[in-house]
C-alpha cells in the first residue's frame, strides 16, 4: 500500500527541510507501508534513545566517522549515507541509558565506556533532546494528556501512556522515535485510531488484587493469557495507584506484549466493561483466581533454587519518590548483609527529590546503592560474582536471569529488603 502524504510531507521526503528530515521521512514511509498504514499522524511528544550507542557500534560505522552523527544516520535513520543531524524542533526526551553517571565504576564500566556515555549525552543535549534518562518519563517531566498522539519507546511506558493516561502511542522502536524527533510524524496505525483501542479479551479477577505485589502478579498472568491483545479486567481489583499500574503494565508487557489494558471503573477509557469493549464482550474469557495466582507466582520463581541471595535489585520500572520513601522506611536502622548487595534504580529527577526528602541518605547509610539512568537488565551490570538475585518486579524477574544466566526470586519489596539484609531468600506466597 502506498501511503497518502500531505504536500508538506512530500516536501519533507524530497528534502525541503534538509537531508536528515528527508531520511527520517523515507524510513517512516517504509515503516508505515510495512504496517499497512494509510497516512501519518502528527506528534510532538517523542520518547526514545536517539543516537546513544556503545563503543562497538560506533566502531562498526568507523568508515562513516564512527561518531554520534554516523550512528544517528546509519543506525537510527537506517540511511545508507551519513547526514548532518540538526537540532530537533519537537518535544523529545531520552529514555533510560547504559550506566549511572556517578556510580559507573561500581557497575563495572570502563573509563572508555564512560567517556563514550558522556560524549553521547552531550550530543543528545546539543540536539535539543531532554535528558530524562528513565523508563518512567511520566515520573520525570513528560506526562501526556488524554488523547495526545505520542511516539514512545519502552514497553512499560507505552502501556502506561495508553492505559492509565489515555495518551495514544504504539510501542515504537529506536529507529522510528529517532526519525519522529526530526519529522514529528508517525504512521497513523494501531493505538492512534479509536477502534484499535477496544478490548479483545475479558479477565475476570476473583482473587483479591490490592497491593503492588498482587497487581504485579496479575499483570504477569494477564500478559501470558492475552499475549499482545488488549485485555479488559473486571472484578476484585482495588486500591489503584500510579505505582501499581506501573508494575502491572510492565509485567503484562513482558510476559505478553500488552500495550494497552482496560480495568473497568478504573482506567479512563473503561468506565464500564461494555465501553471498554466498544459493545458486547468478545474474545476469550480468562479467570484469575487463587489457582492462577499461585501458578503465576510459581512460574516467576521457577528460576530460583539457591536461597543465598547475593544481589537484590529494586527499581524496575524506575522507582517513584514514594517507593524510595518506602524502601528507606524498610531499610532504616538496618544494613545490607556483607554477602549481599542492594541496588535501587530511579530517574535523576526522582533521585533529586529523594535527596531533598532524606530517603536517599537513609538508603545509602544502610549500605545500599541508589542509582539512576539504567537498570541491571539494560546495562547488563550486576555486582561482581552475582549468582542469585531477588526482585520485587515481575518484569525484571522475567528478563534479568535470562540475560545474565543467573537465578532469580520474585517477591514483595519487604521480602527483597529482608533478603538484602540477611543474605537469605525467605519469600513465600501468603
Amino acid at each position, binding site marked *: 500500500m502506498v501511503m497518502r502524504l500531505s504536500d508538506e510531507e512530500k516536501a519533507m521526503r524530497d528534502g525541503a527541510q534538509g537531508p536528515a528530515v528527508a531520511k527520517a521521512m523515507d524510513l517512516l514511509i517504509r515503516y508505515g507501508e510495512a504496517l499497512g498504514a494509510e497516512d501519518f499522524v502528527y506528534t510532538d511528544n517523542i520518547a526514545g534513545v536517539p543516537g546513544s550507542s556503545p563503543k562497538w557500534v560506533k566502531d562498526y560505522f568507523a568508515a562513516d566517522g564512527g561518531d554520534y552523527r554516523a550512528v544517528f544516520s546509519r543506525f537510527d535513520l*537506517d540511511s545508507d549515507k551519513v547526514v548532518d543531524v540538526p537540532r530537533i524542533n519537537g518535544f523529545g526526551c531520552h529514555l533510560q541509558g547504559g550506566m549511572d553517571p556517578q556510580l559507573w565504576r561500581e557497575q563495572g564500566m570502563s573509563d572508555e565506556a564512560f567517556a563514550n556515555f558522556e560524549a553521547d549525552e552531550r550530543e543528545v543535549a546539543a540536539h535539543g533532546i531532554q535528558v530524562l534518562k528513565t523508563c518512567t518519563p511520566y515520573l520525570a517531566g513528560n506526562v501526556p494528556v488524554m488523547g495526545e498522539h505520542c511516539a514512545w519507546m519502552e514497553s512499560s511506558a507505552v502501556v502506561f501512556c495508553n492505559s492509565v493516561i489515555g495518551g495514544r502511542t504504539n*510501542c515504537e*522502536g529506536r529507529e*522510528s522515535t529517532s526519525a519522529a524527533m526530526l519529522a514529528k510524524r508517525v504512521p497513523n496505525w494501531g493505538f492512534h485510531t479509536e477502534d484499535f483501542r477496544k478490548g479483545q479479551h475479558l479477565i475476570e479477577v476473583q482473587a483479591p488484587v490490592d497491593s503492588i505485589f498482587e497487581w504485579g502478579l496479575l499483570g504477569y498472568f494477564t500478559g501470558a493469557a492475552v499475549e499482545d491483545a488488549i485485555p479488559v479486567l473486571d472484578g476484585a481489583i482495588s486500591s489503584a495507584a500510579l505505582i501499581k499500574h506501573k508494575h502491572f503494565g510492565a509485567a503484562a508487557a513482558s510476559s505478553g*506484549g500488552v500495550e494497552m489494558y482496560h480495568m473497568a471503573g478504573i482506567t479512563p477509557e473503561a468506565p464500564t466493561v461494555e465501553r471498554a469493549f466498544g459493545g458486547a464482550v468478545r474474545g476469550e474469557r480468562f479467570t484469575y483466581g487463587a489457582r492462577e495466582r499461585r501458578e503465576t507466582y510459581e512460574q516467576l520463581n521457577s528460576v530460583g533454587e539457591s536461597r543465598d541471595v547475593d544481589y537484590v535489585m529494586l527499581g524496575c520500572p524506575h522507582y517513584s519518590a514514594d517507593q524510595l520513601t518506602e524502601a528507606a522506611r524498610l531499610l532504616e536502622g538496618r544494613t545490607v548483609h556483607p554477602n549481599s548487595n542492594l541496588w535501587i534504580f530511579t530517574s535523576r529527577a526522582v533521585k533529586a527529590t529523594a535527596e531533598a526528602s532524606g530517603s536517599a541518605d537513609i538508603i545509602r547509610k544502610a549500605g545500599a546503592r541508589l542509582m539512576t539512568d539504567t537498570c541491571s537488565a539494560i546495562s547488563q551490570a550486576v555486582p561482581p560474582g552475582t549468582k542469585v538475585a531477588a526482585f520485587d518486579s515481575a518484569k525484571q524477574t522475567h528478563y534479568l536471569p535470562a540475560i545474565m544466566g543467573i537465578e532469580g526470586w520474585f517477591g514483595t519489596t519487604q521480602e527483597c529488603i529482608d533478603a538484602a539484609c540477611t543474605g537469605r531468600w525467605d519469600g513465600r506466597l501468603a
Partner: protein
Amino acid sequence: MATLATRPADVLIRGRKVVGGVVEGEALVTRQTISGWGGVNPMKGEIIEMRHELRGQSFAGKILVFPGAKGSSGWSAMFHTTRLTGQAPIGMLYNITTTKAALGAVVMRVPTMTDFDSDPLEQIETGDWVRIDADAAVVSVWKGGQPSPEGIG
C-alpha cells in the same frame, strides 16, 4: 533471483509485502512469539528467552517463520543489531502485525511478508525450503528441505 529449487513448490501461500525483495533458504519455525531485546542474543542470532521452544537455536541465515513479536520496544534495534553482526535472518514470515515486527523487518532490510491466505505455521516446518518473493507477494514451500538436482523427475 532465480529459484534454486528443481521442482515445483509443494505449497504456495499468498500474502502482503512488508519489505520487498526475493530470498530463498531454510525455514526456522516457531509457534511462539519472539521477544527481541532480552529474548535474543544479537551476537549469535540466538533465542535466549527462558521457556522458549527455540531457546539456544540460531536464526542466522534462516527464514524465520513465527506468529509475531512481543516484549520490549527494543525489538527492532535488537534485530537491527543482528544485521550489523551478520547474524540476521534472511527473511521473515509473521502472522500478527505489530510495530515491533514491522519496524524490525524494515531496518533488517530482509524480504518479509504477512497477512497470508493460509497460515504459514500450518504449512511450513523447520527445515523446509522456502522462497519469499515479497514483490510478487508469494511464498513457495518445498517440504523436507532444498530439492536436490538428483531429485528432478
